[in-house]
């Protein structure tokens, strides 16, 4: 990896720069062009909206609801997707058979199946849960499967000559060997799942951050809408940092493997 010439702490904080730039542009546009609050809230207005929403207890309620849904969906996607991906990846025939199938569903986004789910399950929690699971599952299966295919076959040969059976090979070779890919799949899956979740909440209307943002349009409350958007993105960054990055640091980086 190219670490450049900058010291580590500086590198770690560089991510702030593009955010600062976009906020700068926002402020300039808002004040220099005298844009009204009905068309664009100011950063201060957004902060105020976030404070109000928090004060009323709406924001914590909706955020925890969305996060809870995402957590359930992601855990289910990992628990179902990783074993399926490992099994499919062990055979070239399975990969040939299922890769186009998975790609097909990867391109049919969760939002596109929402109408179908609403017809089947109505405006319910179940509809939202299925959308997240569906969206997160496909990339987890796909990346786990392709990850297994990239493992040098000599590793499983070696285990076989040590007397290891299929389970040993799956546990000691396929799972750790595909982990870099699995993490990529989880990253994509959780990212897509988060988006699908917000869309689902907007349509289904059973609370959650998506519902909160969508609901704010009724009062033309741009501060609230933008606050919701910012929180969406920020939460995803935090999830990525707190959940996925530590997995990578503890495993892939320690083993000296490249991230795929």
């Amino acid at each position, binding site marked *: 990896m190219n670490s450049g010439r900058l010291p580590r702490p500086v590198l770690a904080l560089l991510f702030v720069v593009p955010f600062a730039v976009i906020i700068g542009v926002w402020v300039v546009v808002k004040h220099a062009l005298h844009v009204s609050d009905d068309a664009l809230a100011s950063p201060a207005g957004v902060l105020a909206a976030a404070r109000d929403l928090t004060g009323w207890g709406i924001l914590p309620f909706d955020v925890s609801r969305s996060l809870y849904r995402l957590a359930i969906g992601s855990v289910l996607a990992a628990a179902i997707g990783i074993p399926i991906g490992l099994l499919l990846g062990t055979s070239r025939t399975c990969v040939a058979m299922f890769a186009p199938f998975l790609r097909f569903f990867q391109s049919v986004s969760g939002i596109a199946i929402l109408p179908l789910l609403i017809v089947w399950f109505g405006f319910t929690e179940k509809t939202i849960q299925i959308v997240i699971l569906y969206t997160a599952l496909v990339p987890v299966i796909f990346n786990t499967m392709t990850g297994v295919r990239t493992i*040098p076959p*000599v*590793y499983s*040969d*070696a*285990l*076989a*000559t*040590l*007397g*290891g*059976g299929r389970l*040993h090979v799956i546990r*000691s*070779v396929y799972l*750790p*060997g595909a*982990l870099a890919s699995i993490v990529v799949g989880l990253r994509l899956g959780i990212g897509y799942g988060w988006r699908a979740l917000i869309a689902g909440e907007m349509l289904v209307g059973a609370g959650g951050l998506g519902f909160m943002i969508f609901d704010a349009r009724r009062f033309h409350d741009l501060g609230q809408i933008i606050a919701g958007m910012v929180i969406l993105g920020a939460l995803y960054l935090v999830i990525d940092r707190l959940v996925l990055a530590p997995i990578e640091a503890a*495993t892939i980086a*320690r*083993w*000296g*493997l490249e991230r795929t």
Partner: protein
Amino acid sequence: MARKSTTTVGKDTSRADKAGQRQGARILVDGLSHKFVDQQTGEVVQALEQVDLTIESGEFLTVVGPSGCGKTTLLNAIAGLVHPTGGEVSSDGAVVRGPGRDRGVVFQELAILPWRTVRRNIAHGLEIQKIPRKEREERVGYYVDLMGLSGFENAYPHQLSGGMKQRVAVARTWAADPNVILMDEPFAAVDAQTRITLQEELLRISTVSNNTIMFITHNVDEAVFLGDRVVVMTRRPGRIKALLDCPIPRSERTVDTMARPEFAAFTERVLQLVREEV
């Protein structure tokens, strides 16, 4: 043509036979031919052609031959990792149909796992055999010392030099204590000094442990120093060009006996045969 046998060697046929009472298996390679078909181009490569070879129980056989002549293919067929397109391999009369822990392999590509530390790589075979922790740690400790890996027990393979990785790979196979040991250029990346130590150690272990050993190398000195017999293979398609008995018994080999004229003459003969094929 050997007798066809109904028993087959697959997984885990021989339980850990304790050293001492062990009798290394007799390996019979009978009319072995192998063709590789390239997946993309469909091109056919004849790697081995009609190889007949017996490795006696407890014998140390070394194999030399030009690069690409099929040495690794032969080893993989004995290990059960390659299913030959012609002929067959049997171990103590049982036809080899797949890999098993009775035939341990040190791979040319090493194949130690990047996600396991040195200690856990060496212990891997013992973990699979469910050897109790205490005994496992003792055996691993023994091989860590033997291989000069002390201080690196908790390092991951990417933190090791090429020669150290090879020693881990050798230790992993030896620690699992297989009946037959198949080694594919295991000391190729080890420095000259360590190499001599490891050769002497291998010689010592092999004389007491009674394993059947097949050892592939590019180094003729190594082949004659270690082997009871030396196989010289032809260019591809690989056949047996010559099979030579080493003039000095394995148990009597030291740096001194190697300096004897008959040994030097033997080395020269093998070199000559190898040169004809390059």
